[in-house]
């Protein structure tokens, strides 16, 4: 179910996002290029994994223990 946000909540979320972005970066000169390269590498990895055929019955290789 989609949750509707009021204006105040949206403002809080936007401020939190901006604060996080401000806290994270900019790291150092050239960091934007490196970050783009890292995102591109992840995208290539995912593309590679997507080409791999996975039977529908395959569970992930971890087990939750109660």
């Amino acid at each position, binding site marked *: 179910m989609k949750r509707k946000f009021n204006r105040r909540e949206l403002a809080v979320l936007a401020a939190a996002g901006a604060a996080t972005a401000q806290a*994270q970066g900019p790291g150092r000169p050239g960091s934007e290029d490196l970050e783009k390269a890292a995102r591109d590498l992840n995208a290539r990895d995912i593309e590679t994994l997507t080409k791999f055929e996975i039977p529908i019955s395959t569970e992930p290789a971890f087990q939750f223990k109660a």
Partner: protein
Amino acid sequence: MTDDVFFASITELNGRLRKREFSTVELVRAFADRLESLGPKYNALALPLTKQAVDRAKEIDGEFKRERYRGPLQGIPFGAKDLLALAGYKTTWGAKPFANQVSQDTATVLTKLDDTGSIIIGKLAMVELAGGPSYRMASASLFGPGLNPWDTSRWSGGSSSGSGSAVAAGLVPFALGSETSGSILTPSAFCGVTGLRPTYGLVSRHGAMALAWTMDKIGPICRSAEDCGLVLEKIAGGDSHDPGSAGKSFYYTPQYARKLTDLKCGFAPADLELVEPDARPLFEAAMQVIRQTGIQMVEAALPEFPYAALTHTVISAEGSSVFESLITSGKVNELADAKQIAGLKAGLELGAKDYLKAMRIRSLLKAKFRELFAGLDVLVAPARYSIAPKISEPLDALRVPPGPTSRPGMASLIPAGNLGGLPAISIPCGFVAGMPFGLQIVGTPFSENTLIALAREFQNRTDWHKRRPPAMAS
């Protein structure tokens, strides 16, 4: 105390302690002084623990005096990678943002070693955050680049950089390292020492920094396969504090090992072409020694999987989750390696379906390795395909390049073995231009005794593991 002591095996040192040729205090002080004076030369020392070690050594001497024997590790000094917590002491994880982190708890492996009477004399340097999803330069550490005792212009390997170089330089009789994907095997191969990566879950990781919960392992780096067996026996075992614990113990029982002539060893002929050209003769000679043990040699190939993409996705997703607060707070920017910073940030953007896809393929990988090992007992391959790089060189060339399939030969065996949770041992098998070269032996889960038996036989027939770096040669 002669220099030979610094390169003696665990069994020999323990025997000499029991014969009172020297006291535990003398032995601990000698190693601790050496670690403190030479450790910084290799950027190997994170934290000296000399005072508390000498105090503990006095207690152990009392036990020897009362003839209370605890086993082969009693009185033996060791070093631990600085991702293992020791209550009341700094545990930096090799990273500036954690430079002042003081542990409240002690890692299970350190408690277990203390129970054997073994004595920690120092924390050893490491690549920051055990390398995170990736890093570009050897300098990716709070302690500077790990320098190789065989040639200090070259890297000691990572991420257990200090553990590898400290054992190679005779600063500790053995060390603990950790491996998520290559961090025990690589420094062992580059530094000419013997390192064992245990089966996932065999050794508790409680109190160790997590990088990737489903891939992290802790294991010994020693002078010989035999020493690895002795240490592994003491650190292995179930631990309710480690959710990944397999609940199994390990008993080093060479007397009950299967005959090598009954075993089948898989190898890839293509490996001979893949190793750097100068290493081909020694690799060929090493494979000949393996053959001479009587083990049956069988050509084998790794199952086709996108190993690099799998490893990178799993470590990125889990690692970025582990370090989410470091990343979102911006403190991640204090790390030394810009590539690691970028990789950690990007990892936070990975989606659940992408991570689950990787983990589902990992299930298929496990099944394929079970099939492969139905006809084989071990796989043998170069631990690394080249010698240690210069510290000024980017490390990108060492990595398995991304692609739809595996690389030829066994070149993907390190990521493959780690994804499968398989045990492995790296043993020195020769030198290229004065630098050590290593061979890895990989087996089925919980087959450590088989790996050690083959490695031990190899070491009975060769003396590569007894060589010392030039500055330490007697």
